[in-house]
């Protein structure tokens, strides 16, 4: 009962902040509302005992990604009107996506109604089970080798991004992108 009450509380906050994120005029407010979204999602994950995911969501997304977002939003002089110009033109894509997602969610819920229980066979784990400990143990034993390699992969991404974007000579920069700062290769390429 308590868990259900908490779920509805967090879900309401989540939906409200998600709507606020879209409608807010100030991009800084939008970014802060997205942080709120992440926090409430993390709380909901805690309710379904996915504590590792919840912690990682807060640490990585709130702690690193969103801080970076906020920096960028505050540093760059974004023309909000210009950003909104294409909004109505591409609105149908958004509606279409929303429609598909809604159909999927309804389908998932309805399947349970119709007697197809997708959660069948899932057993709740014992109370003293910690998936953080389990993940940590697996990550550093069974998956040690790929884990270390993934770390090197990140190192390569850093070296590559820096060697491609860092310019020692300033003249070439102004020639390539007159009057503007160079685009951020790192984020553009999704590294």
């Amino acid at each position: 009962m308590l868990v259900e009450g908490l779920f509805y509380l967090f879900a309401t906050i989540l939906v409200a902040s998600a709507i606020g994120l879209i409608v807010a005029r100030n991009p800084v407010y939008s970014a802060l509302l997205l942080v709120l979204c992440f926090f409430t999602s993390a709380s909901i994950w805690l309710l379904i005992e996915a504590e590792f995911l919840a912690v990682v969501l807060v640490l990585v997304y709130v702690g690193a990604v969103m801080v970076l977002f906020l920096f960028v939003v505050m540093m760059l002089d974004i023309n909000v009107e210009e950003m909104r110009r294409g909004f109505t033109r591409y609105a149908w894509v958004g509606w279409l996506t929303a429609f598909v997602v809604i159909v999927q969610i309804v389908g998932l819920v309805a399947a349970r109604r119709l007697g197809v229980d997708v959660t069948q066979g899932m057993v709740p784990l014992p109370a003293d089970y910690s998936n953080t400990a389990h993940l940590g143990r697996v990550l550093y034993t069974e998956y040690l080798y790929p884990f270390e390699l993934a770390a090197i992969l990140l190192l390569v991404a850093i070296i590559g991004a820096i060697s491609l974007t860092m310019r020692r000579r300033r003249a070439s920069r102004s020639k390539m992108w007159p009057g503007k700062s160079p685009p951020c290769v790192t984020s553009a390429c999704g590294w």
Partner: protein
Amino acid sequence: METGFNMANIARAMPEMYLAGAICFVLLVDVFFGEKRRGLTPTLTLLVLAVGAALTLLYANLPGREFLFHGQYVSDPLAVMLKLFGFLVAAIGLLYSRDYLQRRDMNRGEYYVLVLTALLGVFVIVSANSLLTVYIGVELLALSVYAIVAFDRQSGIAAEAAMKYFVLGAMASGVLLYGMSMIYGLTGTLALDELAQMASGTPSLGVTFGLVFIVVAVAFKFGAAPFHMWLPDVYHGAPTAVTTFISTVPQIAYFALAFRLLSFGMSGVAEYWQDMLAIVAVLSLVLGNLVAIAQTNMKRMLAYSTIGNVGFILLGFVAGNLQGHEAALYYTVAYVIMALGSFGVVLLLSRTGFEADELDHFRGLHARDPLAAAVMAILMFSTAGIPPFVGFWAKFNILQALWLDGHVALIIVAAAVSIIGLFYYLRVVKLMYFDAPDGLPAAQSGQGGVRLTLALNALAVVALASCQTCCCSLWRGLSASVSHRLNGSHFPPSSFILVGSVAGWSSLAARRAHNPKVVGSNPTPATNFPGISLGRLLLLPRSSISVPRSLRAFAAVDRYDGPRYECGLRTQ
């Protein structure tokens, strides 16, 4: 609880562990001392590669096959051999490109670090025994290579090449991952050795689906025909030093990728992917060899030649027997050595502001730089598959394996396109020996070490061919892994193929020689090249980069008209 490794068998992972440490070491040394002493990082990198090869020989070179790191990693003699070869090829490639990098202000420490990380990616693929490890290795290699393709920031065409490579490569990675996730979802295992047992017999629809995606991704990485679009642009657009690297070291990894993923992990459903690979191989053979004729740029021509050669390597996998895999391995090694030398010559000839990558730049090379011309001639003869050189034996082994498996149609296609391929390889030889230099720059002095290495590289092409039989028996032991799929097969009527191909070549040569128009219209007796009689036999039409009229259509298929894009954006 089982820990997965102990100190005794962890030594088998020495190459990867050492290289990972060495990358950090080189990076740190470059950060602190690289600015002041420009030559330090290149020398250190060569030293790192030499020590790595020595450590691999000392610690990892153990018989038998063993799984490490909870089955994520496999160590066998094939892996050790490919890693040693990787160290060697990377070192020679860096030696060739050192001067080039210096002249183009690309001699920064990051280049060497990225080359080492790419090599680590190659090693990871070579020793992978899990879909996860394969994927991480592919990404490690690909990310490093994207970065070094775009390394020359003054060059718009390099940026374009890198952008194309990155976008298409990211898509291929996605395709690979999608296929892997399907296979994993349906078999419930990531380990390739378990997968070999799980996925066997008639595959379900889902497994077939995943298999198609994996084959597409492997073909993309190889640059095989319907998925070859990126390859000519990247080879042409990248700085020649980078082209030298990406046409050699990653090829080792792609062989291993196909071997570990398909021949090993998917051995249970081999006949399904072999049919797919056969189509890809034939398309690559035909397209690579025909479109190469229409090229006027050396790097681009060699790129299409790569596509053709990849077709041959894939044919080895199509044959599917032990001979086929051996032949594919032999072909990969031979091809890497030949590509290394060919691009090495292009690197040697380039000057500041002069790339030396057009076919026209090779006119009269014999008069200007006899050594470079001789090396290039040997490599071109070898790549074309002319008998005394290693390229012939590589092709011959593939055809032999196909014969054993009964693919007569594939043999005919492969032999036919080899003969077509003679045209553009020998055109280079003709340009070098029978055309006037026309005021092209003379050989520059210095670079003695590079010249010596190039000469050794060309000699290796001859030497490898002469010890072909002993190498083959050596590799037979090495690639014992596929032996479970081998059913005892007797020695083939190989003389039939030998006689057939020699007859084909000689009839073509004779037709050329007896065509009075061709010989008569060539008034350049010119050089005192000792092998001139052989050259005369294989004489080609006069106008240097002439394309037979019937083949002009292929010029329209692909002709690069200089940089059209800058930094991925259309400029005009």
